[in-house]
């Protein structure tokens, strides 16, 4: 086995070659590729997780169900599926800040956040976030977590998929669910940022 670093052109040719074999064998079609690509480009993304968070912020009973069983609570809103078959939602508070990672590969809760950004899958984040989380959040993400706040890092080594219920921003008492959902960012549900200020 040798190390090879291929160019984009070389990878593209390799993928097309493999695709051509799979098409001839009836394993794959370009129509199915287009459908799957479209789902994660336009249908399944962090707007779904944001809707769940906004509901939890406004409905204490739903929030309790969400923290007790993430999968079942999301299913109430018709949200769930591939790579989120078993979801656990953890709550940020004044004393605890949570952040998720997958040090062994790239596991991520697709049904609520869509496909992960590249930095989440890259070696630097996975290597450092379990060892120096406060420094990574502050230096790399510009998100300072005071020393008095405990940082809990959730490493998704199994099929359980963790994600974060961020704190509701101050001054949002009058906002409805839709307006609140607009404040919830992907990064706030990974734990590398906070929800937007009102």
């Amino acid at each position, binding site marked *: 086995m040798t190390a090879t670093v291929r160019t984009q052109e070389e990878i593209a040719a*390799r993928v097309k*070659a493999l695709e051509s074999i799979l098409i001839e*064998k009836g394993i794959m079609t370009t129509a*199915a590729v287009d459908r*799957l690509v479209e789902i994660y480009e336009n249908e399944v993304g962090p707007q779904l997780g944001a809707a769940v968070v906004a509901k939890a912020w406004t409905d204490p009973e739903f929030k309790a169900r969400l923290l007790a069983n993430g999968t079942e609570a999301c299913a109430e809103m018709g949200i769930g599926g591939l790579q989120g*078959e078993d979801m656990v939602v953890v709550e940020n508070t004044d004393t605890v800040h949570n952040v998720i990672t997958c040090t062994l590969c790239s596991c991520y809760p697709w049904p609520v956040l869509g496909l992960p950004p590249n930095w989440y899958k890259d070696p*630097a984040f996975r*290597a450092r976030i379990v060892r120096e989380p406060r420094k*990574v959040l502050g230096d*790399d993400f510009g998100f300072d977590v005071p020393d008095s706040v405990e940082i809990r890092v959730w490493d998704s080594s199994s099929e359980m998929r963790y994600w974060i219920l961020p704190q509701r921003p101050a001054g949002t008492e009058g906002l409805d669910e839709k307006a609140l959902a607009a404040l919830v960012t992907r990064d706030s549900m990974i734990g590398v940022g906070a929800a937007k200020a009102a």
Partner: protein
Amino acid sequence: MNGVHDLGGTDGLGPVEIPENEPVYRAEWEKAAFAMFSMTFRAGFFGIDAFRYGIEQMHPATYLLSPYYEHWLHTIEHHGIEKGMIDEAELDRRTQHYLENPDAPLPAEKEDPDLLAFVDGVVKAGAPAGRPSDKVAQFKVGDRVTVASDVPYGHTRKAKYVRGRTGEIALAHGTFIYPDSAGNGGPDAPEHVYTVKFTAEELWGAEAADPNGTVYFDVWEPYITPAKLTTAEEAA
């Protein structure tokens, strides 16, 4: 396996590179590589654990430097060739053809409504790894446990940085496919899964650790044994 993919705690990788905005797919080939996973999964190339093990066996330098979806390409090829579904020489020949003729068309395809239905079905329903078992859980929330120090050669989800470390069970999840069996060509062999809470000090030592940090890591029951009592606990 003790591979470079097991990155938790590795130093020297530099800052996290965070572009302002990036598309879901950065190139056309990424779309095909992403979609290929679900379809080759359906065709029986691998389960999720074997899929991961194929990636872990990449050359470490290639693993660290290649774009993410090239990892997927690698494991699909690995298992396709191993299962006799892909002829490597033919794949090399076609690669050369598309390298010289990047705009050459793909072969004509037949419509396959079953495949389209599978795509929508699997996205919605998922592919759960929970499996029933009559095994009785040997541990409960609050138990202190130590992760085994064994370093297996095959696929495992026992990361280097938790081996030999002691923590407390925070959550108990029920029984799931066991990666150390399924990822190495064995049966599902379901085992209980627990989330174990480790203090940063236990993982990295008092000098380097964040004094107010914890890491939660999921283990399958065979990974852990009851923690030995500390000297203070024995005395008490």
